[in-house]
């Protein structure tokens, strides 16, 4: 046995005795140092994929994606079944008119019509045709370029080929809101209707209702 190994063997219990309290102290310091006061979720929350039709962990009483999906699906299914569309000899043309938002929630009001149009275009497969009226300025410019011969045309540019609308699709969002000590309640009635452009008759109308309630922490009341 060398002198070094003898010395080491004598020191070994000493190291054990010192290292245990040292590590313990480190753990205590570590826990004390991790108070993260004033920081919520200091390590963050990883990105979570949600389905658009489910309520996420961030929710309010206003208009949310699951409402949009529910309402747009219901309206698209309802529209495609009406005789004016289901039995039409040629696909009727529809122009989207802005939705009237009468609720207390500012929203992108076009989003409902965009989703209904998308649903109908993908599911109804040519039973209806939407006119791109929001693009009229660009369309007219292009037509004028063709008429002037500045660009090529695949048909006679002198002809009027812009289609007129058979129907207007529009809607109204109306709300009832209540706030008491028991919490906040928001009811929204989503009403959509199809108007015959020739007669002004409302040929289809459907509604969806969503009511949400919530109560904030007492610290905010």
């Amino acid at each position, binding site marked *: 046995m060398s002198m070094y190994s003898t010395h080491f063997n004598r020191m070994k219990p000493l190291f054990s005795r010192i290292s245990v309290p040292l590590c313990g102290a480190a753990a205590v310091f*570590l826990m004390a140092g991790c108070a993260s006061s004033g920081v*919520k979720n200091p390590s963050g929350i990883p990105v979570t994929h949600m389905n658009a039709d489910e309520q996420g962990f*961030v929710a309010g009483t206003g208009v949310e994606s699951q409402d949009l999906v529910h309402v747009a699906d219901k309206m698209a299914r309802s529209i495609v079944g009406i005789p004016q569309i289901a039995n039409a000899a040629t696909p009727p043309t529809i122009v989207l008119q802005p939705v009237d938002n009468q609720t207390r929630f500012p929203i992108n009001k076009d989003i409902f019509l965009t989703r209904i149009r998308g649903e109908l275009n993908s599911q109804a497969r040519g039973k209806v045709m939407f006119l791109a009226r929001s693009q009229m300025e660009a369309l007219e410019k292009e037509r004028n370029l063709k008429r002037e011969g500045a660009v090529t045309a695949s048909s006679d540019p002198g002809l009027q080929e812009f289609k007129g609308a058979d129907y207007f699709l529009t809607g109204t969002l109306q709300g009832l809101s209540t706030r008491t000590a028991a919490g906040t309640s928001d009811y929204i009635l989503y009403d959509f209707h199809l108007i015959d452009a020739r007669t002004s008759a409302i040929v289809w109308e459907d509604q969806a209702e969503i009511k949400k309630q919530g109560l904030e922490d007492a610290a905010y009341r």
Partner: protein
Amino acid sequence: MKSLRQPTLLAVLLTLAGCTTTTRQVVLTGNVMVDGPNAMANGPPRDRVLWEYRTAAAAMCQGNYPLAKQYLDDALLTLGGIYGNDPNARKARSYFHAEAKKTFIGEPYERSMAYIYRGILYWMDGEPDNARACFRSAEFEDSDTENHQYAGDWVLPEYLDGLATMRLGGDGMDAFKRAQAVARGVKLPPYNPKANVLLFLAFGPGPTKFATGQYGEELRFHAVPSTVTSADIRVDSLNIPVAPTDDVVFQATTRGGRVMDHVLGNKAVFKTATDVAGNVAIIGGLTTAAVSHDQTAQAVGLGIALAGVVSKVVSAATVPAADTRSWDNLPHYLSFACFPLPVGQHAVTVQFLDPSGRVLSNLTKTINLNITTTDHDTVVFVSDRSVTPQTL
């Protein structure tokens, strides 16, 4: 000795690694446009909405409307999603944390003002329906007052709700009547379908918060008397006197008691009770230990004294202080005027007047308007703190 270094090094590393996230402090310069973005980036997240409010208001005065929109949108998202469990709010209610630990969303008057500002910006962008939605939310935020006489009593949001409805082809007279009913001493002008310029006015220093009570547990509001109490608009041949329609200080002070005031009251009672109990236990315990010759009685006395010390520590750790974080660059008064202007260039002059009707010339603002169409509204926001001249 090498082996001794390893656990020591490990201990130091672990300690350092664990200590990185602590409360962040921000050095303020006094310029909101500098402090706001800095505080949002580097300050505590619980103050984020507060700084968004302040920076948005400052941006409105500087005519930087896209920036104001950006901050208000983010603040209103937080405001609209506060339902249910919130760890910071739970902390704020606990005995050992201050109310200011909660995420700031403001008192109802502050929330209403955020919606009013956002409504003005929506209208500026040609979205009167979303503007109306904001004005309705502004009224909604004020709907849960202790005294129902003061519930939903903002004048301007109600008046603008009706005006937006009329602009959108509806009948806004219900809202007009509600606005007139809550307008204290002001006769509101009837809606003018031909008016295409909407001028929003804000003036005077708004309310701030302070705390009273033994432990600062009672929230109070303070306002410096405004040197500006009315305004005068001059454009072309028009001269339009403008009286305040809404008093933000009035809105702040008429909300009444909060649920949180009750919580803070309980905290204050607990703090007093544990302090008194601690005093009694320490004095009683030490006296018993000192005068008794019995070892058991002395031990019991010292135990009681120790419990007293614990009670004093608990009392010292209890924080009943009210949250006095304030949206401190709000105006005292809000007002509004709308009038018709033909297509073309117009110079609008806004003069602010003191209580005796004298013009405060150092506050006069000029707005150069270029009206390109009378089909949609031109919206102008002017504060006594606005930059001048503005060109829209």
